[in-house]
């Protein structure tokens, strides 16, 4: 039942609304609204009940394992959430003078320092609000660099075919033409092909390493040199940073600029779709272009640095400084883990992925790059099963829901057919991984013997399989009676 179907004209949660002495306003009629907006008219209890019940219809980290490749769905510590919700942070206005904002600014400054260390970069700007905005920042910085060099012919951004969709979309948003770089059979960038693509039009390349294929790009240094030699710059998509914390740094690999997804690597809750935070880090080449505001330190005081102090900055990306509360959470998380804990997170994320990969392989599944080490994730391809039993990766994924596992990422990267990209993260226990293997094996058995169980899955969710085609064709995106 929709909340609107519980609505009744005239009902109001009086405990929450102002008690007006009069409803007089001095605003002329021409500006005023005449109709009542369609907000629900329900009691506080009705709202509480409705949304409590709705929440129970969701999978979440707090209820289910999410082996969602490229998403790093790990435990979101409750303590971090609690501390970021201290009233001193929550009730603080973003434009409050620096003098009364030292607590928040200090946290942000420390976070900048920590992230610079982790990435091996010179400087960090925290303002981008998600990975995609971090990409926009980074690519804009590359553009600013070439423009400062009067190098206006560099109109191409190279992106591997395995890249996340935001990479090409962000490049286009900065006015670049996107060129797809192919992948070789081992899952690495096809270096020979890349060579032929580089040239005076090359603005740069966007890479993820370990890549979204779950493997570490071994020739990264060579690639970096090639791109730099061609006059291009290297952008690092930090979505997979959880694989390499304290082990290897993008700055050391030769990247010039990058984003991080704090809502992945730094365990901030994903919130059913957001918010995230996508800080951007840059080396000596690009640091001055970082978006503002940045937090600086002058004597003992933390200060905002804006376009005034950083005139070459690409400028402002949001009204204030991005998703401040998410940044705060990432800072708390980083302080709790510490350098040793961050490193260990990547070690165990890698351990879990490799263990799972080996067990699934042993159980008869086809691994996409099975001779490679898994990074913190790996790919199962069901192309054989699809052919033999007529089932798809979707069918497999939907059936997993019935066993209480969120589905892995499906059909991404696009170049592996019928793929499941699996990332267990370090916070899942061996028992849970073993249970996942058992369930995968059981579903494989079902695929052989009763494929219709998969094709009609899920069976135990609040709804059965949904009709996506109808949703798009008979568009119903706003309720009306």
């Amino acid at each position, binding site marked *: 039942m929709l909340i609107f179907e519980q609505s009744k004209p005239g009902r109001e949660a009086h405990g929450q609304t102002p008690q007006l002495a009069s409803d007089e306003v001095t605003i002329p009629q021409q500006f005023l609204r005449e109709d009542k907006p369609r907000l629900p008219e329900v009691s506080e209890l009705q709202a509480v009940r409705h949304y409590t019940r709705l929440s129970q219809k*969701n999978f979440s980290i707090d209820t289910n394992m999410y082996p969602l490749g490229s998403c790093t769905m790990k435990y979101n510590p409750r303590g971090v959430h609690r501390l970021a919700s201290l009233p001193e942070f929550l009730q603080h206005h973003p434009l409050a003078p620096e003098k009364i904002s030292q607590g928040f600014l200090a946290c942000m400054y420390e976070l900048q320092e920590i992230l610079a260390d982790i990435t091996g970069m010179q400087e960090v700007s925290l303002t981008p609000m998600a990975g995609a905005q971090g990409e926009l920042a980074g690519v804009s910085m590359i553009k600013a660099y070439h423009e400062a060099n009067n190098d206006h012919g560099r109109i191409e951004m190279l992106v591997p075919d395995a890249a996340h969709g935001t990479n090409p979309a962000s490049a286009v948003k900065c006015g670049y033409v996107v060129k797809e770089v192919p992948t070789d059979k081992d899952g690495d960038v096809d270096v020979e092909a890349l060579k032929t693509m580089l040239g005076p039009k090359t603005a740069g390349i966007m890479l993820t390493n370990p890549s979204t294929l779950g493997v570490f790009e071994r020739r990264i240094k060579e690639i970096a040199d090639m791109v730099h030699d061609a006059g291009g710059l290297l952008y690092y998509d930090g979505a997979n940073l959880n694989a390499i914390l304290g082990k290897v740094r993008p700055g050391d690999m030769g990247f010039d600029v990058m984003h991080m997804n704090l809502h992945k690597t730094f365990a901030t809750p994903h919130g059913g779709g957001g918010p995230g935070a996508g800080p951007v880090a840059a080396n000596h080449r690009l640091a001055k272009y970082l978006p503002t505001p940045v937090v600086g330190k002058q004597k003992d005081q933390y200060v905002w640095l804006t376009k005034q102090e950083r005139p070459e900055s690409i400028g402002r990306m949001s009204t204030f400084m991005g998703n401040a509360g998410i940044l705060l959470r990432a800072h708390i998380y980083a302080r709790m883990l510490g350098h040793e804990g961050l490193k260990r997170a990547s070690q165990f994320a890698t*351990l879990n992925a490799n263990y799972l990969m080996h067990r699934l392989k042993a159980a008869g599944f086809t691994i996409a790059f099975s001779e490679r080490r898994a990074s913190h994730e790996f790919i199962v391809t069901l192309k054989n099963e699809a052919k033999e039993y007529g089932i798809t990766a979707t069918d497999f994924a939907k059936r997993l829901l019935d066993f209480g596992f969120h589905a892995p990422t499906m059909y991404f990267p696009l170049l592996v057919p019928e793929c499941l990209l699996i990332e267990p993260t370090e916070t899942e226990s061996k028992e849970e991984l073993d249970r996942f293997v058992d369930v995968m094996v059981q579903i494989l058995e079902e695929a052989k013997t009763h494929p219709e169980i998969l094709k009609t899955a899920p069976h135990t969710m609040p709804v059965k399989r949904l009709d996506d085609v109808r949703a798009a064709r008979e568009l119903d995106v706003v309720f009306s009676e």
Partner: protein
Amino acid sequence: MPFIPHTDEDVKQMLVAIGVAEIDDLFDEVPANLTIDSLKNVPTGINEMQASVLFKEFGSLNQQVSCFLGAGAYEHHIPAAVWDLTSRGEFMTAYTPYQAEASQGGLQLIYEFQTMMASLTGMDISNASMYEGATALSEAVLMAIRSNRRNKARKVLLATTVNSNYRQVLDLIAAKQNIQFIELAYCQKQGTTLLSDLEKYQDEDIAAVVVQQPNFFGCLEDVDHITDWAHQKQALVVASVNPTSLALLKAPGKWGEQGADIVTGEGQPLGVPLASGGPYFGFMCCKQALVRQMPGRIVGRTVDSDGKQGFTLTLQAREQHIRRAKATSNICTNQGLLVTAATIYMSIIGPQGLKKVAIQSHQNLEYLKQKLAALDDIELVFNASNFHEAVIRLPIAAEKVVEKMLQHGILAGLPLHQDYSELKNSLLVCVTETKTQQDMDNYVACLQLSLNQIKKTSKKAAKV
């Protein structure tokens, strides 16, 4: 290992299963010359108890004040139920609802949100959120340019009464796309866009007009006129609005003859705390005809294989994960959790409640304006109608007054001359329903006192 569940025995067994001797062997594909031993600038880990002490200390360095500052982020009462529910693990720790069957709670909620926002703005369609107000406006401008079939111009008229931070964001994002912004001047008396300024562009090709209501000064623009003017020129009207105000003010869908085309805004006033600036959320609504140009996620209602109602992400072919370089935007992760909070907020507050919040805020401002205007040294800068924010002129630099007022525990407002050099000594003051008459009287008294104190000190200084 704060959050790692493995026992030593587990690790042993897992390494055996993989066939390596130790965990570090799993990194053997990383070129050895690239690896580091450890992070140097990250402190050693601490447990939750130690973190509590540490971050309470950090917190204590943020002074808590009585807030009369708005300028794009507004203090409102938020029912406790809003975040009690929003913080439930099933909402807070869920992923984007790509697996619809396992995400019906979140999806239905977004569908409800879309319905509420569409109705509040008077539009046909709402998406499931943008990052925040300024980026929502930028995306709207890009969308307007993309979708204006009749007019392929890349010139956009932009009111200078739009929040100056928003205009900076527009610069960054829209400039990369070769869009030219032309700023519309405002009337120094009214504090609203000079309608006569519009006429200058009567003969130019204009793709869109961008207007904010209430504008950055809290003044009410003549949106009917602007909208009709734009439409007669085949330009689209892109609005940035305060959602609370919409319970009281004319919905953008009703502006002029045909209504605004794309409506965006900062959703923060709908149940999201000030929180040092975020996370907030942007909303974006549009007319039906523009839906395929809409950036961001949209949830649709459909049926399952039993014919039962269900919800799912729809029109995904607009999005980057499907369309990549051809997507309507690069946005992926959005602000889902804040949408959750806003939806619950709107459900609890309801339509009358939101109107009362708007009215109370407005009445409070009128009260404060009167009291301030009665002070000798202070005048109201503009004489348009205001919503819950207004500009006052002080006898001295506004920064000085703001600093002094902090000593009384009051955050007095935003000095304007940085963003509007013509507005010397001016302060943008905001008041919402959270302030009582006593709070406002106290503001006025402290302001008087602060001015006196500053005068005295400067006289003394002059004497020396």
